């Protein structure tokens, strides 16, 4: 996901959608913040007007809202939905913040992904309309008139057949891609499929391991979430069984797949339900 789950992601670069509910009136990012700080009880906040306000602001200020801001909007809506659904679950009243966060992040990821998917699928239809419209206007391709000579010096001067062969080897052997500065973009450094493969290589033969142990060394939240999704995926594939002693308790993960990690690694890793 492009948006991080850090609180910094809640800062909007465009106009924040204003939401009006019986218990809260103000920008949506403030609402998320207050909910997170338990200043506003999410149970008291009806979500429909929040989502409506969210969509409305986006519609009213399309020109000033950046793509990044839009994905942040999506994320915040998802966060609110998730916090609320978590809060509505019966469970121990005293859940510490850490665990509560751990609880909603995975499903937050799922919800925001679902919302996004639906949007992209609708966009795909719009692309068809755009391209059909564009195809009605055909570009000229005739190029330069006859009689215009390109006064180029012989560009092949000094190029020997061997140099050409070298160039071919270079072109086909090492496909060097331009590096772009991605510091402004949040990129999953670890993908779910890679993690599935890594887990499929490391879990077999290992005794039952807890999710906490599995992720203890990880520093960023996204990596933990990716690991969670990878475990879910392996679970779905029947490679691991996951047990949870109590709600919000630690997950116990046990490898039950075949003992051929390579075979497991070949399993398509990204086929969990979208």
């Amino acid at each position: 996901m492009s948006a991080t789950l850090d609180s910094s992601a809640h800062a909007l670069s465009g106009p924040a959608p204003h939401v009006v509910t019986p218990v809260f009136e103000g920008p949506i990012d403030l609402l998320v913040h207050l909910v997170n700080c338990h200043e506003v009880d999410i149970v008291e906040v009806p979500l429909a007007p929040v989502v409506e306000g969210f969509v409305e602001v986006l519609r009213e200020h399309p020109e000033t809202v950046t793509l990044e801001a839009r994905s942040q909007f999506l994320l915040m809506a998802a966060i609110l939905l998730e916090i609320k659904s978590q809060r509505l679950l019966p469970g121990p009243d005293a859940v510490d913040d850490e665990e509560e966060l751990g609880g909603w992040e995975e499903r937050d990821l799922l919800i925001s992904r679902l919302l996004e998917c639906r949007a992209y699928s609708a966009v795909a239809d719009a692309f068809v309309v755009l391209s059909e419209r564009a195809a009605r206007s055909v570009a000229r391709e005739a190029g330069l008139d006859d009689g215009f000579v390109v006064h180029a010096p012989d560009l092949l001067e000094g190029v020997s057949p061997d140099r050409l062969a070298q160039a071919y080897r270079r072109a086909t052997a090492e496909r060097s891609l331009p590096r772009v500065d991605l510091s402004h973009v949040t990129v999953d450094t670890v993908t779910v499929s890679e993690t599935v493969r890594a887990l499929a290589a490391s879990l077999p033969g290992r005794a039952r391991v807890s999710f906490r142990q599995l992720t203890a060394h990880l520093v960023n939240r996204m990596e933990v979430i990716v690991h969670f999704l990878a475990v879910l995926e392996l679970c779905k594939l029947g490679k691991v069984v996951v047990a949870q002693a109590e709600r919000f308790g630690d997950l116990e993960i046990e490898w039950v797949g075949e003992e051929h990690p390579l075979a497991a690694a070949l399993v398509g890793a990204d086929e969990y339900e979208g």
Partner: protein
Amino acid sequence: MNDEDLARAIEAVVLVAVEPVSPGLLAELLEEPAERVEAACERLAASYGDERRGFVLARVAGGYRYQTHPDLAAYVERFANRDVSHRLSTAALETLAIVAYRQPVSRAQIAALRGVNADGVVRLLEQRGYIAAVGRAAGPGQPVLYGTTDLFLERLGLDSLSQLPPVEDFLPGADVAAELEESLRPPAGAGASGDGTGD
């Protein structure tokens, strides 16, 4: 250069170009400020419209080029006998949408979003020239990151990515969001219905 000469020179250069000519390149060739060139292009485009020409001066993928007027498509198609068989599948279009709005994006990210392996579709889009590798992500595996190309913009008739329709126009409504929330609630939480998601 006076306005008329500027317009004539623009007409000549754009006529022989095979891809959109940026105002910057025109400015360089004609030794005039880019702003002036751009204004002249816009005036030309408007005048073709006023004169009801059979062609338009379109702004596409960051530059200007001559195109046929859309309402003459029937004649042009008959003439050019153009192949319309290369329509993209729904899967390819959705993947293209993801790349367009999330670029730069890796195949794994696309797969994670679409819920299915995206390798074949990504390769197809790359072969068609709609997307291209634009770099590699830092970190383990260094996955290739994809972005859309100028050809993508040209095929959609867009000047730049900023002209993509706003994705929020395509967001599911509040009802769908509420539905999602509902569907993702575990059955164990049935006791907590009537939560007032509506009203």
